[in-house]
């Protein structure tokens, strides 16, 4: 056995009910190496890491740390083995500052926080972290919180670091900073595992790549010898085209004119600040921005779910040519005006669908009120459900299976299918491919493009800048609730959007 191997998994299997999350997975990471774990959502990456960090216990298989077999029964065991995990969702106490969060839970009789702070600062300097240790978590940006999480595991002496999709919430500039720090840690002899599904990051950062597909271990390759295309094939198991079709828009008309929207959230914080833009028919308008920059509030305001304190939303009816102001109208009032507005919300099971109901009953959400009878009419929704199952190839036992039991991609197909079935004139979709595998993602992109070709004004909120640049005709960039720019999707550069995404923050 190679003495340089820090962590090795052999034949790991884990099942949840009938779902096999991991099946006979082998994996090893050396000291002084960055290993990427690549796989589509649902391929078992996070489950595997949770077993290494003691959150789950494997059904079968063994884990070796530094050549010794170990049993990791709790996060504490993992910590004692010097394994540190940085989760996708940060586990920090908001009202504490960075230092307090880092030392939280450490045992010892007498604790000297000043001394600890000095030691933490030394760790930061060693690897080049830029962080104010006295800053409270609630004042921090996502990137700063992530830094705190990384420093926390390093300060506690972790030699094996696992990062679960660390770049999902960062801007391109912040990603570069993170990568620089990770490389420095690698050079210091740490073993680093990074979970991601962004291919270009894998190619840029890692030394080796292990690929999982549907819970099964496919293989490990040296990054230097692979390309985006070869990795995709390993991930998906077949050759697929990575190009998105983008026809030129034609006959565009101003469908939705938004002027000077202002909105405060429940805490009285201004979440939308003087937002103005035009959504045109036959065009996809992308919305880019760091998570929580006002995307959700903006779409909800248009859909009639947010109270606005200023501005107007003017809808130009394609049939009657009338202009209607939708501001502060309820969803029912908007519908009664004859506005065919479809909305695929970010929270699919918590807002767009009812998880415990079947596909047919979920179809009814939009149409149950039709007709005068006080009883439900279940035939039409059932027909629609079966049509969507056939057309979009939804994998489900039948139309009555609760949608929460379907995979993320299938849930999304059901939701998008229902919203498109209403033949909308405006279609808003918030993060419609989040958590979807590559094939389902392309199905959704094609559906959106299809709608655009039919003359629908499509508004697409996305997080992957590469996709936004490939799919959208124009891209609106939000930062801190303000529009910092509207760029042309065909000519704009990623870096340009990245700068716009953080613009107003730096200006403060």
């Amino acid at each position: 056995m190679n003495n340089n191997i820090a962590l090795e998994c052999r034949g790991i299997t884990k099942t949840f009910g009938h779902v096999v999350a991991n099946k006979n997975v082998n994996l090893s990471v050396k000291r002084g190496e960055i290993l990427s774990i690549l796989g589509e959502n649902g391929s078992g990456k996070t489950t595997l890491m949770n077993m290494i960090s003691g959150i789950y216990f494997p059904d079968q298989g063994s884990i070796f740390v530094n050549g010794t077999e170990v049993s990791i029964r709790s996060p504490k065991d993992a910590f004692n083995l010097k394994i540190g995990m940085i989760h996708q969702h940060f586990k920090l106490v908001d009202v504490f500052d960075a230092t307090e969060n880092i030392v939280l839970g450490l045992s010892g009789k007498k604790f000297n926080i000043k001394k600890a702070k000095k030691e933490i600062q030394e760790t930061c300097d060693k690897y080049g972290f830029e962080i104010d240790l006295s800053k409270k978590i609630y004042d921090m940006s996502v990137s700063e919180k992530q830094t705190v999480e990384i420093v926390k595991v390093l300060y506690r002496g972790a030699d094996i670091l696992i990062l679960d999709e660390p770049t999902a919430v960062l801007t391109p500039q912040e990603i570069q900073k993170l990568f620089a720090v990770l490389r420095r840690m690698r050079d210091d002899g740490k073993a680093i595992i990074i979970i991601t599904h962004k291919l270009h990051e894998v190619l840029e950062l890692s030394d080796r790549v292990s690929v999982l597909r549907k819970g099964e271990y496919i293989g490990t390759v040296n990054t230097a010898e692979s390309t985006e295309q070869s990795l995709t094939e390993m991930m998906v198991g077949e050759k697929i085209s990575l190009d998105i079709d983008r026809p030129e828009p034609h006959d565009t008309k101003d469908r939705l004119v938004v002027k000077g929207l202002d909105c405060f959230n429940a805490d009285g914080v201004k979440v939308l600040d003087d937002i103005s833009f035009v959504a045109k028919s036959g065009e996809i308008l992308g919305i880019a921005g760091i998570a929580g920059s006002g995307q959700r509030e903006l779409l909800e305001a248009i859909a009639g779910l947010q109270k606005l304190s200023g501005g107007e939303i003017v809808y130009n009816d394609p049939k009657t040519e009338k202009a209607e102001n939708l501001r502060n109208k309820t969803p029912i009032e908007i519908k009664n005006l004859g506005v065919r507005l479809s909305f695929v919300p970010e929270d699919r099971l918590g807002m767009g669908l009812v998880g415990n109901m079947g596909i047919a009953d979920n179809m009814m959400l939009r149409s149950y009120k039709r007709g005068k009878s006080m009883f439900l009419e279940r035939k039409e929704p059932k027909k629609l459900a079966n049509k969507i199952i056939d057309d979009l190839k939804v994998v489900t036992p039948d139309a009555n299976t609760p949608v929460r039991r379907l995979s993320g991609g299938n849930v999304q197909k059901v939701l998008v299918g229902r919203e498109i079935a209403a033949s909308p004139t405006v279609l808003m979709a918030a993060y419609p491919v989040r958590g979807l595998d590559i094939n389902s993602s392309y199905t959704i992109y094609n559906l959106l493009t299809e709608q655009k070709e039919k003359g629908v004004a499509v508004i697409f909120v996305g997080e992957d800048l590469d996709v936004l640049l490939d799919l959208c005709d124009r891209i609106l960039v939000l930062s801190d609730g303000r529009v910092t720019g509207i760029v042309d999707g065909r000519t704009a550069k990623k870096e340009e959007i990245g700068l716009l995404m953080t613009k107003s923050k730096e200006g403060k």
Partner: protein
Amino acid sequence: MAREKKVHNPLFHVVKREPLPFLPALGIRAAAVVAALIVSALVITVLSQQNPLEVYKSMFEGSFGSSVRIWNLALNLAMLLCVSLVVTPAFKMKFWNIGAEGQVLISGLATVACMFFLGDQFAFLGDKKPYVLIPIMLGASILAGILWAVLPAIAKALWNTNETLFTLMMNYIAIQLVAYFLKKYVKSGSGVLEPMPQHGLPVIGDMDYLLSILIVLALTVIVYVYLKHSKQGYEISVVGESVNTAKYIGINVKKVIIRTLAISGAIAGVAGFLLVGGINHTISTTTVGGRGFTAIMVSWLAKFNPLTMIITSFLIVFMERGAEQISSDFNVDPSISDILTGIILFFIIGCEFFLQYKIVFNKNRKEEV
């Protein structure tokens, strides 16, 4: 050094299982009942030195031993079922109404007040009296029930107050109002109101309770159809599953909360009307007898399905009657029968865990590494 170290795997771990088909699920439930009976038998033998088989026999006889007992069983089942129907629409909406006790009691008070104050006023109508008095009793009872249920709903809808506390507190108000009524209007000062069967519900043949039981059965079917097949029932499910989804599709959540609790209150009105007008013909602070709380269990065990609630309320009534029978037959302390009820319910509720999870023992635990 590493060789000497043994790997200590945990003895077992818990794994979520896929949804079970109907028959194996029934099997697990049956096994739970058998296990409960065995454990109860041990407890009986140790604590009361009785033959457990004899005890079970007496338990069964408590419910089915004679036609009077069967009638009693049916009546108690019907009343528990009726009170369970009160909480079910609200529970389906995830509105935790634990005030059924008070809602039914206040309805009963309204009924008894009509009987007490108006009963003799309408005596001049002779045979036609019930046609006037009974609708008044029912109407007053339903209004009282709606008032008691809608107050917490309005507060919840408008100010998002905690419905559990609010409905619970309303119980005490209802109990105190009944106590006040009895103190003020019972002339003898005993606090016990003489039954007034002459103002009660008509009797079908010589079967005192048949009418009440039939009304409850009809109500059960109505509530089932309402929840499952009506548009309003669909709205209740959507609001219960996710308020955000309800808002997203344009349901007026406040309206649905208030409307649903008004329906709950109306059912409470029927329950109170039957309890007082059809069965007891009088009222005391314990007329509802804790059914308002037992109903919570009935409704939950049946997963809020009114038809399944017939079975779960039967189960609970059967055990209560059986427990009473044991303590009188064997002259044991009533707490023994409470212990038995507890054990059986523990197993029945506990087996739900095994329907969703299975336990996997680690085979290679003792292997040397």
